[in-house]
């Protein structure tokens, strides 16, 4: 006899061919219930009995736990060709067992195969990455088509939307862009100061900060901040619209979503990212100047004079062209992932994450390409 706290299980063998299970006490959801299957198998090894009967006269209360055990017993018996008799069980319990053992629907054939090996996984990821580049290029093409339609004068979007996007993703980003670039300017100046002090060439900190910030760090840091802020927002907005079928509604109304949703965002950011970058450059240089003043005791006037000599218009324009391109990348990665979102809530979260990742990867890759182009052109 197996005894738990109070649920009891008693197994006897009235004839060599039958097994009688007596259930007593409360059989409810708890951890220390006797193991029914284990007990049966111990009393009657597979194939030893032909019939199992259950006696429940002393059973007090029961719930799903008992049914789950009995269901397992029933399946086991069915597999071993053993007859099982539940007639003595309470009506409700019998009906539940019948319901649970009734043939359930066949699960439909899976669309994709389950698990694969490591090599297949690598292949799948590579194909996905290549496809992602293709997607971006295709999306860029569609955007250009929309832009052409806009230039020809039959673009369909609302100016209100454009102004709203400009407000939300321009001026509203000033504090964070300012803070990050101020710190980046300081870091560059610090690193430079330590190295240049050894050669007594402290004054060149101004050159380092100026060129570093205007050509590289200003545009790139601004773009990366906006990739996190704006791409994610766009992906979430468009993803939610996809979930609500709002994008399909645009399509069936004959209003191209590329024109109505993507175009104002592209225009807004192509204007806003360079403007934010100018601001970021100024703040970044100021951060560098503060460090030179405090650490190297270079006066602000001296720093400024050195800076003016170090920076040419080309540096500024080169940086701003990059910034405009980054703006396009930020919008495209956000909108592309949003439009690709499938129709579920988790898809929106996935779209936002993947938009930020796509955005940052493309920004840094594009920055590398720009650097090479500028070097080759001798700019």
């Amino acid at each position, binding site marked *: 006899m197996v005894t738990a706290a109070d649920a009891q299980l008693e197994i006897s063998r009235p004839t060599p061919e039958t097994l009688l299970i007596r259930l007593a006490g409360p059989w409810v959801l708890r951890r220390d219930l006797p193991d029914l299957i284990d007990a049966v198998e111990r009393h009657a090894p597979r194939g030893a009995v032909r019939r199992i009967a259950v006696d429940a006269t002393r059973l007090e209360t029961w719930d799903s736990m008992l049914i789950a055990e009995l269901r397992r017993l029933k399946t086991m018996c069915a597999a071993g060709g053993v007859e099982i008799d539940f007639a003595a069980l309470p009506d409700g319990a019998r009906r539940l067992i019948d319901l649970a053992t009734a043939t359930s629907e066949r699960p*439909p054939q899976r*669309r994709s195969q389950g698990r694969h090996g490591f090599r297949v996984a690598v292949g799948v990821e590579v194909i996905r990455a290549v496809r992602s580049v293709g997607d971006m290029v295709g999306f860029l093409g569609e955007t250009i088509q929309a832009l052409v339609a806009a230039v020809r004068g039959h673009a*369909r979007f609302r100016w209100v*939307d454009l102004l709203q996007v400009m407000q939300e993703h321009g001026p509203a980003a000033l504090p964070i862009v300012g803070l990050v670039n101020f710190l980046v300017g300081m870091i560059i100046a610090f690193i430079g100061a330590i190295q240049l002090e050894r050669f007594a060439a402290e004054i060149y900190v101004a050159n380092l900060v100026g060129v570093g910030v205007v050509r590289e760090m200003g545009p790139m840091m601004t773009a990366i901040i906006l990739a996190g802020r704006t791409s994610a927002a766009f992906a979430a907005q468009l993803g*939610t*619209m996809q979930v*609500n*079928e*709002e994008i*399909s*509604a*645009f*399509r*069936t*109304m*004959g*209003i191209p979503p590329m024109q109505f949703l993507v175009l104002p965002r592209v225009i807004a950011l192509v204007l806003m990212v360079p403007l934010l970058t100018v601001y970021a450059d100024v703040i970044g240089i100021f951060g560098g100047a503060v460090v030179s003043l405090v650490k190297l005791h270079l006066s602000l006037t001296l720093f400024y004079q050195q800076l003016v000599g170090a920076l040419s218009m080309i540096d500024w324009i080169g940086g701003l062209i990059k910034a405009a391109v980054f703006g396009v990348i930020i919008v495209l990665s956000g909108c592309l992932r949003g439009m690709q979102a499938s129709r579920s809530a988790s898809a929106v979260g996935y779209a936002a994450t993947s938009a930020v990742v796509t955005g940052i990867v493309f920004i840094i890759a594009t920055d590398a390409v720009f650097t090479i182009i500028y070097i080759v052109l001798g700019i």
Partner: protein
Amino acid sequence: MQSAAPPNDSPICDFAPRDGEAHIQVRGLTMAYGNFVLQRDLNFTINRGDIFVIMGGSGSGKSTLLNHLLGLNPPAKGQVLFEGHSLWDATPEERDLILRRVGVLYQSGALWSSMTLEENIALPLGEYTNLSERQIRELVGFKLALVGLSGFEDYFPSQISGGMRKRAGLARAMALDPEILFFDEPSAGLDPITAKRLDDLILDLRATLGATVVVVTHELDSIFAIGTNSVFLDIERRTQTALGDPKRLRDECPDPTVHSFLTRGRETIEAAQ
């Protein structure tokens, strides 16, 4: 016309009307996502003035079929003809022309969430007509009144209830006085009274505007209340298994799946007992 051994593409119960003017024709349509074939060999005709019901269990491809009828999804095989013209092969300009004669009510209403109800309805009007702002405002007021939402012009979709959103979606679908109205699960998520009212509204619209109506639904009450013609998509066989008036299909179709669908499985259960 059924032969003794029906070819693979003919439905089991074909009660489709033999007369009437075809509005939309589906010819040998196969719908697939990649290699996964959802439905194959669909052949049916939606006549002018029909209230055509697309029926089938969950996952049988009803909504996907709707997207094919609208030209949003490319057919894997076969064609969808809109007054004899293929939607998918049309140039974007032709497609726009066809689509402006079509109104769609999506399952959730699909109102554009960043715009007020008035702006939602005014947008297609502004896109496709050169009406003055005053005219547009009047039309918007009229459409909203038709669906019982006068005075809600300045509300955003998030500020009204689900049933109201659906009605507002209907007002937007009717903005351009379409010849064909598509409804994706119109009564899903509505209480029985609101659902009944929407059914009545659909009947009224057909009577007054003379529009063809295509409804995707599995609500039996709606199907029998408004449907004049239908197609049944079988999820197991992955093709259509019945065509025609749903009431007649319920009474006369011998196919067990169709029959049990249209009788809520009542007789199948009785038979099993």
